[in-house]
């Protein structure tokens, strides 16, 4: 496609930055464990967006390749994360992350 002339790269970067920040904020403020994971996915997506954009800017496919790897890893992480969440849920019977504070100090 030939849209590259019209869309300033910085717009896209700002979008990715915004998504990244949203992810970060989500991890920081939400209580629900699953939503923490969702926020992490948001962060990874922001990264992917960057890769794609820069891949386009530099005219090589390395960024796109990387983003495939990122997706794969996102999948793996989601699997593990959910596994842990379920295990935690079985023991704690709650999805609140701030109940997980047996260890402190």
């Amino acid at each position, binding site marked *: 496609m030939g849209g590259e002339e019209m869309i300033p790269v910085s717009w896209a*970067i700002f979008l990715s930055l915004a998504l*990244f920040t949203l*992810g*970060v904020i989500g*991890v920081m403020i939400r209580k629900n*464990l699953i939503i*923490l*994971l969702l926020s*992490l996915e948001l*962060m*990874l997506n*922001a*990264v992917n967006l*960057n*890769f794609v*954009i*820069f891949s386009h*800017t*530099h005219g*090589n496919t*390395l*960024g796109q*390749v*990387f983003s495939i*790897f*990122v997706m794969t*890893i996102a999948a*793996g*992480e989601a699997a*593990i*994360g959910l596994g*842990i*969440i379920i*295990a*935690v849920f079985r*023991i*704690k019977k709650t999805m609140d992350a701030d109940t*997980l*504070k*047996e*260890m*402190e*100090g």
Partner: protein
Amino acid sequence: MIKGIIPSLILTITALFLLLLRLFKIKKDWVGLSLGILSLLSGIIFLPYGISENSLPTLIQDDLAIYFQFLVMLASILTLILSWDYIKEGKWGFVEYSSLVLFATVGMYFLVGSKDFLTLYIGLELMALSSYVLTGYTRGEAKAFEASFKYFILGAFSSGVLLYGISLVYGSTGNFSIENALGQFQGSTDFIFKAGMLMVLCGFLFKVAAIPFHIWTPDVYEGAPNPITAFFSIGPKAASFAAFVRVFWWVFAPASEDWQFVVYVVAFLTMLGGNLMAIVQNNVKRLLAYASIGSAGYVMLGFISKNDFSLKGIFYYLLAFLFAMVGIFAIIIYLNKKEYSEEKVDDFKGLNKKHPFLAFSMLIFLLSLVGIPGTAGFVGKFFLFGSAIKGGFILLAVVGVLMSVVSLYYFFRIVVNMYISEEEKMEIKNSKFLLTTLIICLLGTLIFGIYPSFLLRILSINL
């Protein structure tokens, strides 16, 4: 071409084989242990084979890689021996445990040996993922899961940050190579390069547990099974440091002054905070966690000063740290009671009376961590502080040595319990495996402490 990855191949195949065994419900624990150790040993043996070969596009086989790969494999071997009693006792199955450790080792192998951000990232993630699993592996305890979950979320968070940094660097340079990333670096005006650099820095600082990214460490150390805690404190940390050094000394070399300043502040805080927080701990594992944070600060002295003493210092110190930590955890496992309870500093009361050798070894390890001459820890610190002095980071060196003194204060609370308090309430297991680990670590600490030239002669790390 294949030579460079022989060790990792051996490890991978063994790990897969072990999984397969598990799949067929063959739960021969000793197979897991012996195969794991064998494969790691042969991996170490094959390490030097790849050294002349640099034909792999994404892997590099230089001194730095070889030494640190050696280090992480050594860490894995010791971890496996260390884990035997622990895992056996809980009947958690050594086979898959062993394979997970091997997978983590493979991850670290690639992390250390990568010359490309992508490989680095994959290695990092493999290592991290195995670590998450290992953290929650054994106890079936809320604490372990809590630790695992915290570790996982924060780890993923930080690798997200690292990744974002990588993407920005990619945006600036247009490739992922660590060797030749600088093709398109545009000097001091290249802001996304610097933003990327800072975020990569943050990601690595998380991995090496530097303040203020240390926050996960105490909880994870406390919650994780003892042998795994030992493993975390050495293997992933050493591997992360190696990658850290490689990335920042190579890719970000042109911006040295920029990151040196930031790392300066961080190293300062890390040495200070880690050691100060350790003062107020009563839980041994948390205490060690903070101590290891402080140690990361010392290692950063070598990292920041970037001269001929630095790598020797980093490697030597991490090696000493490895021996000391594994040894200490061996002793903690020795002391571990049947029912689950916290590992208090008080647990060591009267150890000397009960088992003088354990107490003595513990003393040596603690002295090594403090950096008393005659132990390997001193040689490491000698090089690290030396590199800081040579690099002109006098203030950091002064803080470092002062904090060594502080570390004496909290470590010696354990010594006081062992030697001076008369109370005795512990039961001590009798384990050949733990003893073996202990002796290896003790010998390592003393030999490398008293006659370091043996290692230094080999160690001619150059970049």
